[in-house]
């Protein structure tokens, strides 16, 4: 049983044949206005290239952003879009998705937008597990307002608002997301487009709030913040790509691995004969404790330490949990089923009336 509303009547008119798109179809007519060389360009490109593969009609895709450089993103996508206000995209997306669960809803946000002013809506979205995809463009800076430190900027960051270095301890976005009971938590980078595309697909596949943090270079105000991980030379040593069910191996020649020694992760050499692949930690996306440990491969590390942890990229955590939007809609369905479509006259009349002659 169901109420057939104007929306249902209107959208039923759709073209049912699945459309074949190319990346170009997702490019809007607006000039892209990021600084030349900004990491946002390649992310835009990968998103546009991934869209044809998610199997959703353009008309059913919505991008919602807050404010910031990253938040300009929806203007450049030839889908429905809203460039809203600072920090509120998750709340707007929640309203949209609850009322239109059939849409594919994407949230575009920056580290300031989602972890400073919008951090409340961010954690509530994760806890509710609204079935949307959130792309967090982390450049460890406020780009649009020209270079103040952000809540992900490392301690001591010198920026326009912290000429003597910042004092606050930064958020660990993945740890925060886990703490908020997020069901899908992943990390990618602007400079590895192939991996980014894979992650975008995974993000889309997951049912529930999919949180993909993307390391994004702000070439103007914070150039090179992630160079250690993104530079092709240092990347093999400093980044580790996670794959479900596979051992944790990294290094230029896949010569290093990570073991669990009790609760303690340890970097080991795979070439000195002590350990082999079989001794390593096997990645399990469903294991919350392992995800916790992985999220903590994070603290400023000592590049001189041979056994320093690499930074994990890929899906750290992915579990199923009922989605809020679905729950709301099934509850409405159930009540409709049980009580029938509400009769307006009955409601207006109420439980008790009297007649004046």
């Amino acid at each position: 049983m169901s109420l057939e509303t104007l929306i249902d009547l209107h959208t039923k008119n759709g073209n049912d044949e699945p459309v074949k798109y190319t990346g170009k179809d997702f490019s809007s007519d607006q000039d892209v206005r990021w600084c030349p060389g900004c990491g946002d360009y390649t992310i835009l490109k990968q998103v546009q290239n991934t869209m044809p593969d998610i199997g959703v009609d353009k008309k059913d895709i919505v991008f919602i952003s807050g404010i910031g450089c990253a938040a300009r993103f929806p203007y450049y996508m030839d889908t429905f879009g809203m460039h809203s206000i600072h920090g509120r995209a998750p709340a707007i997306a929640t309203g949209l998705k609850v009322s239109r669960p059939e849409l594919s809803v994407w949230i575009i946000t920056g580290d300031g937008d989602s972890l400073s002013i919008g951090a409340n809506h961010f954690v509530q979205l994760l806890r509710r597990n609204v079935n949307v995809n959130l792309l967090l463009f982390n450049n460890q800076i406020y780009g649009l307002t020209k270079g103040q430190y952000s809540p992900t900027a490392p301690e001591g960051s010198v920026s326009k608002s912290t000429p003597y270095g910042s004092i606050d301890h930064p958020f660990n976005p993945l740890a925060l997301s886990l703490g908020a009971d997020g069901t899908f938590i992943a990390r990618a980078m602007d400079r590895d487009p192939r991996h980014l595309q894979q992650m975008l697909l995974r993000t889309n596949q997951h049912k529930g709030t999919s949180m993909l943090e993307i390391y994004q270079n702000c070439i103007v105000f914070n150039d090179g913040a992630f160079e250690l991980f993104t530079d092709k030379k240092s990347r093999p040593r400093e980044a580790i790509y996670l794959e479900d069910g596979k051992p944790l191996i990294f290094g230029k020649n896949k010569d290093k691995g990570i073991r669990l020694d009790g609760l303690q992760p340890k970097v080991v050499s795979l070439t000195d004969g002590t350990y082999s692949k079989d001794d390593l930690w096997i990645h399990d996306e469903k294991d919350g404790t392992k995800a916790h440990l992985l999220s903590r491969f994070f603290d400023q590390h000592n590049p001189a330490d041979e056994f320093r942890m690499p930074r994990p990229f890929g899906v750290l955590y992915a579990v199923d949990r009922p989605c809020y939007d679905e729950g709301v809609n099934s509850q409405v369905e159930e009540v409709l089923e049980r009580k029938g479509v509400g009769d307006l006259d009955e409601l207006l009349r109420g439980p008790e009336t009297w007649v004046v002659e």
Partner: protein
Amino acid sequence: MDVKDLVRDEVTIRFAGDSGDGMQLTGSLFTNTTALEGNDLRTLPEFPAEIRAPAGTVPGVSSFQLNFGSIEIMTPGDACDVLVVMNSAALKANLSMLKPGGVIIANTSGFDKRNLNLAKYGEGKNPLDDGSLSKYTLLEVDVSKLTKESLSDSGLGYKDVERAKNMFVLGLLYWMYNRPLESTIKFLEKKFGKKPEIAAANIKVLKDGYHFGETAEIFSEKYTVKKAVIGPGEYRSITGNKATVLGLVAATRQSNLPLFFGSYPITPASDILHELSRLKNYGVYTFQAEDEIAAVSSAIGASFGGSLGITSSSGPGIALKGEAIGLAVMLELPLVVLNIQRAGPSTGMPTKTEQSDLLQAMYGRNGESPMVIVAPATPADCFDAAFEACRISLEHMVPVFFLSDGYLANGSEPWKFPKAKDLKKVNVKFEPPRFGESNGDQFLPYLRDERLVRSWAIPGTEGIEHRLGGLEKEENSGNVSYNPENHQKMTNLRQAKVDKIADFIPLQSVDSGNEKGDVLVLGWGSTYGSIRTAARELREEGIDISHAHIKYLNPFPKNLGELIENFNHILVPEMNSGQLVKMIRDKYFVDAVGINKVKGRPFFVDELKRQIKDALASNS
């Protein structure tokens, strides 16, 4: 003793007791019976600010006032004729509300040492016997004891017996005012359907209360209040918040849209969330958000998707929504913001009423950000105003403020409710899809029709993919624009669009009095009943005074200026320090004078009459 049966035009009764004494229920039942008897009536419930203040204390007192009569009744009455007090704290808290010479019915067991202490009457003092009540008629009844006796054979425990006390009082009052018991008996049978022994006990106590009146020989008078002349039809009783809910649901049903309600609890708005959350089978989606910002944002998201997004709050919560409401102004999407006003500033007095957010509704956002404002005049009028708020928002693609207040929210009145088929239609049409590449026309999301309204282009519609945002937009295309001329144009357009709505709302009429004359009292919102009654009484005293009540506060009805010109004096009573009066003075350049009360309470009729006279005296 001989009991006289006197006829009265109008009576005000106030029930007061501890929060646990069931005074709200007692009042409501008396109200229902009275309504069924054909009287006109208005009620005023008053709750303690605390959830559950310690029993017996003044902060724990709960009261319910009912004014009914054979004449037109528009307020719950300034002061009461009869004050029922279940304990000494109730007397202390309410005595000032009793008319000189009025009747006090006091439950004597509520005046024992413990209770007197809790009410802080001072060592050894008891108002019942220290002569301090000598200018009233004091009727002492040991309700607790009598109830206990009435139920001595019932086998009920102490608690259940205690809880039945209020039925004794109700029965007694029914006797005093010649009311039948049937409807209350039916109610009790239904309420305690699963506990027939409780139902029976309550009914017994009710009847014993009634009989006590007949036999106790302490009452020398009883009263008859004849039927009022009320328009024929089927009525129900309704509070403002309930009527608001019905108005919202009716408007979305008339437009065949889902209603999305994003809200965060706050007194006195929360009941709207509670009521709506029960109406899922009416196509209502409720979302208790993490805060008011998320609440209004979620509603904007839903409106973008084609639902009617509604949000509600009060005081501090409305202040928080300002930024996002500004976004809705810029986006030109439907959005209804319900502000159930309470006493401010800041947290203020959450359980008390006030009308002090009108200018916030007008100006409480950055930039030139015009918004439509409607305000209901009475509890039942909340239905119409809420319906109109939705209609305007949907048909004109604008956010609309609905300004109710705590007094309307919890007050109730008889309502000749409409039939669904007689409701206005709300005309909504989504932008149609554009199939195929052949159609060269680019979709222009900010193209306007002759009413300056843009079209509602919802996701899921082929060929009209587009982007909106809070940055200034180019006329028609909606693309981001920093062009100076365009900004002026868009600023003017947003204003003109709101102004044009004046063509689609009713003209302002005079509520009572002459169309031209000496004095016009201009009101808005919940002061309606007090102003109407005061104006009537002043006309009876020979003053040439008219009353007009503005329900559309932005834009004003087109003829308001003309109407104002027909009078020599314009007085504007408000429960604030003067807000509408500013708008009137500015807009019509007329020396309107404010009459203001900021006490967390409605105007009393007498007080308002006096203030009107004073204003006229100093103004002429």
